[in-house]
């Protein structure tokens, strides 16, 4: 089937199977920042924004994105404050989880422009970083909020 959606601000049509999760469709479209990691929606590494809300690409059926606006980290402007803050705070090591962290943090800051440490921990509770960069990730979110 064809999937018509707005992908990173551009009207896009993508080929997909009816029973396929969106992560595979996006990766075939060359959006390699969406990374299959746990496959069950608990690690946040394949987070995408669906109409601005973070969702796990591994749990979202492709068809559910029809007619909606979908954003991956590739769709953020180069000077977006969140990637800049992650860069400035050295808030990653291997970089695998960073796109999901950035997108989740983006929505967190839209809802709460000045989150406390506890609110950042709760907001990013569904994003895992096995390298353990959390101290810096928290600092990056604070920096982007400032």
């Amino acid at each position, binding site marked *: 089937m064809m999937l018509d959606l707005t992908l990173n601000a551009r009207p896009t049509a993508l080929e997909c199977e009816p029973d396929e999760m969106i992560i595979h469709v996006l990766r075939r479209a060359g959006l390699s920042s969406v990374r299959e990691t746990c496959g069950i929606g608990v690690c946040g590494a394949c987070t995408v924004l669906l109409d601005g809300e973070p969702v796990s690409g591994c749990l979202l059926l492709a068809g559910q994105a029809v007619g909606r606006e979908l954003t991956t980290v590739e769709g953020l402007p180069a000077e977006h404050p969140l990637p800049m803050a992650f860069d400035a705070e050295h808030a990653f*090591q291997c970089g695998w989880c960073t796109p999901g962290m950035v997108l989740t943090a983006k929505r967190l800051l839209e809802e709460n422009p000045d989150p406390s440490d506890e609110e950042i921990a709760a907001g990013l*509770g569904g994003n895992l970083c096995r390298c353990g960069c959390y101290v810096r990730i928290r600092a990056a979110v604070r920096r982007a909020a400032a």
Partner: protein
Amino acid sequence: MQDIKYGRVVHRREDFRLTQGRGLYAGDIALDGMTHAVFVRSPHAHARVLSVDASALPAAAVALLPEDVAGLGRYGCQLKDQDVLANPARFVGDVVAAVSAPTPAAARAAAASLNVSYAELPAVFDPLAAVADGAPLVHAESGSSAGDAVSIGVRPLAGTNVCHRFRLVHGDAERGFEDADVTVEETFRTAGAQHAPMEPHATLASWTDGGRLELTTGTQTPFNLRDDLAGVFGLEPDRIRVVAPLMGGSFGAKTFTRLEAVVACLARKAGRPVKAVLERSEEFVTLGRHPAVVRVKLGAAKDGTLVAKRVDCWADTGAYADCGPGVTTKMGYAGIGPYRIPHVRVDALAVYTNLPPNGAFRGYGATQSVWASERAMDMLAERLDISPLELRLRNLLRDGDRFATGETMRDVHFDECLRAAADAVGYEQDPRGKGLCVLLKGMQTPSRAAIAVERTPVGYTIRSASCEMGQGVRDSLRLQGAALLGCEPGQIEVPDPDTDSSPFDTRTTSSRSTYMMGRALGEAVADLSANGGERGYGEIANEGGLDPDTGQGVASTHWHQGAAAAAVSVDEETGELTVERLHAAVYAGRVVDRAGAELQNEGSMIMGLGTALFESVEHAEGQITNANLSDYCLPALGDLPGALTHELIEREGAEPHGLGETALPPVPAAIGNALGSLGVHVTDLPMTPERVAEAAA
């Protein structure tokens, strides 16, 4: 090198690429005509494969069947005990066949079309049961020694499940215990753990028309892998090329031969490139951390002077040895601790069981025995009625002391690390609810590191086989190179390791690269300067090794040294343990990349927190029962202690010091000892609420 200023905070060349999601990992790479692999895994813990019926295989798929691998060699980094396809299957998840097809979905369907018949065999799931008389044998015969990949003499005990026995004898432990005024003895256990790098294992294999194997694979050990595969295929090593791109974390998981042998065979049979990317559940049957039983007996004089120690280890290496012999050796000598003890005896066994294989894992054996050894120190302090800090300080190794291996210790900083950790939590003012741990951990010895530098129009290219997994080795080399070459770090390119163009390196493990490759780089730059400034080559080797029967020799030419301190509170009714404060102090010599070094400390501590509190691979009849990231929990941001702090201890003029793992092993014991100071004595990791409540009752 005295005048070189390191320790700058710089931005990695690839930083912005990574924060924009543009990092490319092995699984992101594609070749024309590539197909996808899926593995067919045994549902039985131990079973002979009677037949594999491929009559229903879809036409577009290719199957790798037992008859396809009949003539191939065995592999394994320390014992060659593994076949490309297993028969018998020795654990639930052992690969007995594999398929490739044009898409991952088609490959899954093709895998399901194979019909494998098995005859079940008796199995064993516990290292103590596996060494008991009459235990089923996981391997009918010992694998042969793996030759030059071995850094230790491997000592399998024929006719048993022991694939390696490491013994260390220093003085006369039995006589020592007779002389001791006080003796404590306890048995400790540590759970199996998953490395759980966010990026799963991924491998892409293809064969050239000329019969050369080319692999792009997430690996910390490109040369070891190349040599192991050369043995499988009967090829000269230079007929195999291994390219190692950026990894999305590894922590020891991506070492030696993992998927590569099977994927390479499939690619050869299919006549086209084949890629495999593991699912998360498969990660749990690919490699883990050794669960271990460690028994410690410790004797001291009334004044707290240690007189004798006995350390016995049973490390469950699973169905294949992998580097279990090396892990077990290090577990054995790290369990002695950084102490002067006149009489020591260590007996450490790497034991086969019918569970998935265990291998290198950040901390490499030290995590298990440091838990036991440092908990025992606090038990001894309590018996002696001496402060645990005082007991440690009284016995710590000092510069010029001899360790139980017979080697003389140099550049010793245990005292500073321990005092720094204790001070950070106010230990001397009030030790209640607080705990300490100090450790030593060896670096790969012997080993060799070589590197090449060449001038380019933009600056320089540095080629080495030091693999990037997020630890920041490329930045480390770039920074050291910039200081040595007098250019900016951004002018230095560090291409991915490639066995065709990178000089030999033993491997990217044991926190050795900044130190060893950094020294080799110094040689290479000197060579470049002396020879016209266009190109230079440098090579460094460290010599040593331990006799596996006596434990005498040189365990390490470069000692990782660190300490941790914790402050905790506990709800004795529910067993809920709260870590309020965690601090680690690590000897850094001279920091090369400050942000990178700090991230290594923080990452080690947070991983140690998971080991201490909740990470445990569970199994029932050989089947992993929590093989996903919902049931196997990793530390999240909300799991951080109220205060997580650390320090890098530096000394003017010192050499850069490896620190990629040092802050992990001391964390569980610091927390366990803090709990112990409240009268709650836990012996088994992780310290789950159930265990804590039971110990408090």
